[in-house]
């Protein structure tokens, strides 16, 4: 395998996705508006400490933006009949999967960093560890872009089916990840329950980076996010490989 060609195929796939699916006015506006609406829904009107909850809000934002468009790409390409042409170009399945993830990660991180920068102008945010903050943005965007690509993998050329599946998986994760109730305030079964969600570890990593009040040691958050990313990527590859064998 020529690694130069493989890298090139990944980067061109990423560029293709960014240009066709992400760099569109409505997508960018939705990416910015949706977390804002979620923020207004859950935080405004309640007597909450915004600084305490900000890491959870940032994680939620990154989670939604990085995994929002990815689930649609493959079903959309299958419906538009561009997927077959893409497969006949000098790419392999891994190029497509990683290219999809990179595009989602760039979009998620880009939007979240803009929002973080804007919020830091109006809120007295502190950064305890800049390297951890950068790592949280990178790991979080890649992990949840990989989730988006995994959600795109089941056999369908109907994007609305995938949107339903996507909502079914993503919305519950948001409620069991320490976004609305800080992890430090959870005990017993509730705490164990939140440990199932990969989003919990991103929320915790942002807590470590911003407020320095993480529950888990940062290396645990990092290892879990890396492990979950590998599982998502591997699963997406296996499912899409199976689809290729079946010719669907």
């Amino acid at each position, binding site marked *: *395998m020529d690694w130069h060609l493989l890298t090139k195929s990944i980067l061109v796939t990423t560029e293709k996705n960014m*240009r066709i699916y992400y760099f569109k006015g409505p997508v960018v506006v939705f990416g910015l508006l949706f977390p804002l609406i979620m923020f207004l829904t859950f935080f405004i009107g309640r007597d909450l400490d915004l600084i305490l909850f900000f890491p959870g809000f940032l994680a939620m934002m990154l989670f939604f933006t990085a995994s929002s468009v990815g689930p649609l790409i493959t079903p959309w390409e299958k419906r*538009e009949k561009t997927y077959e042409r893409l497969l*006949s170009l*000098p790419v392999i399945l891994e190029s497509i999967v990683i290219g999809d993830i990179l595009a989602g990660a760039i979009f998620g991180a880009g939007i979240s960093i803009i929002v973080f920068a804007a919020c830091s102008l109006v809120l007295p945010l502190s950064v305890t560890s800049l390297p951890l903050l950068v790592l949280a943005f990178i790991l979080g965007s890649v992990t949840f872009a990989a989730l988006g690509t995994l959600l795109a993998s089941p056999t369908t050329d109907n994007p609305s089916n995938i949107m339903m599946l996507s909502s079914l998986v993503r919305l519950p994760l948001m409620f069991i990840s320490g976004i609305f109730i800080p992890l430090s305030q959870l005990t017993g079964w509730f705490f164990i329950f939140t440990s199932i969600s990969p989003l919990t570890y991103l929320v915790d990593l942002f807590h470590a980076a911003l407020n320095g009040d993480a529950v888990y040691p940062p290396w645990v958050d990092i290892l879990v996010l890396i492990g979950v990313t590998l599982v998502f990527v591997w699963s997406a590859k296996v499912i899409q490989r199976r689809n290729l064998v079946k*010719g669907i």
Partner: protein
Amino acid sequence: MDAVRATGLTKKFGTFSAVDNVSITIPEGSIFGFLGPNGAGKTTTIRMLTGVLVPDAGSVRIFGIDVHDDPIAAKLKMGVIPENGTVYSDLSALQNILLTAKFFGMERVTREERACEILERLGLSDRQDDLVRTFSKGMRQRVSIACAIIHAPPLLILDEPTTGLDVYSRRLVIDTVRRMNREGSTVLLTTHNIEEANALCSRISVINHGTIVATESPEKLKKTFDTSRYVEISFNREVDAPLFSASCIPNAEPYGDKWRVYTDDPDRTVKSLVTLADREGLSIVSIATSNPSLEEAFVTLTAGA
């Protein structure tokens, strides 16, 4: 070196055997036709050749490179127009072509020059910046062809490239295939348009029910299955059937204002008819021999499809 060497390709979908032990060898520089009725296994075979579909058994080598072992290197040698594939409708014609060129690793200057040249050749220069979603089917197919040939591929694979196209687009496709072949590309073309295959291909494989039933040059295929050749003749005055039988010309039947003489040997029959006309003082108004038809070979080979 062979441009394509596929051995024992087999693909089943559930219990249905779509392609069964298909082997194809395409010499470099040729135009190879892959004929078959709908559902015969043409597209499934092409999808396996282009690395889109994983075969259950068999192997494919493109210019000696195994598609399974080194798919990117093998695909770099190909330009593919898939039957079920189209270009991105949210990009312009030019953007589609340049994006494809990037996949093939072409340098910026080269891909821009080549894109302009191809757009001009395919009559798309005026619309190069328009979104493909505003294009007709024929124009989309031309963009698809432009994408497939942007890197001057050594192997061009076209799956039903002219189906549903208007005359102008169809002619452009055929001209492009010929030109690419003249410039050195090997061409693999699937079609169920027999005349197209006849006009373009130096060699043809006929596939039916997932297996190759014949591989020959179009002329040899026609001759193999030519069972009803005839000579058609008309004279300056009416003649009767006994005139032919008296001259040892059997199987003559009236056909409008002409006579049709069925024969295994058109050459001998034409000479006999000329002798007969001389002897009887008849003037020949018209005389023609039927050409063996590839359609006949195709129908015979794919009977029951």
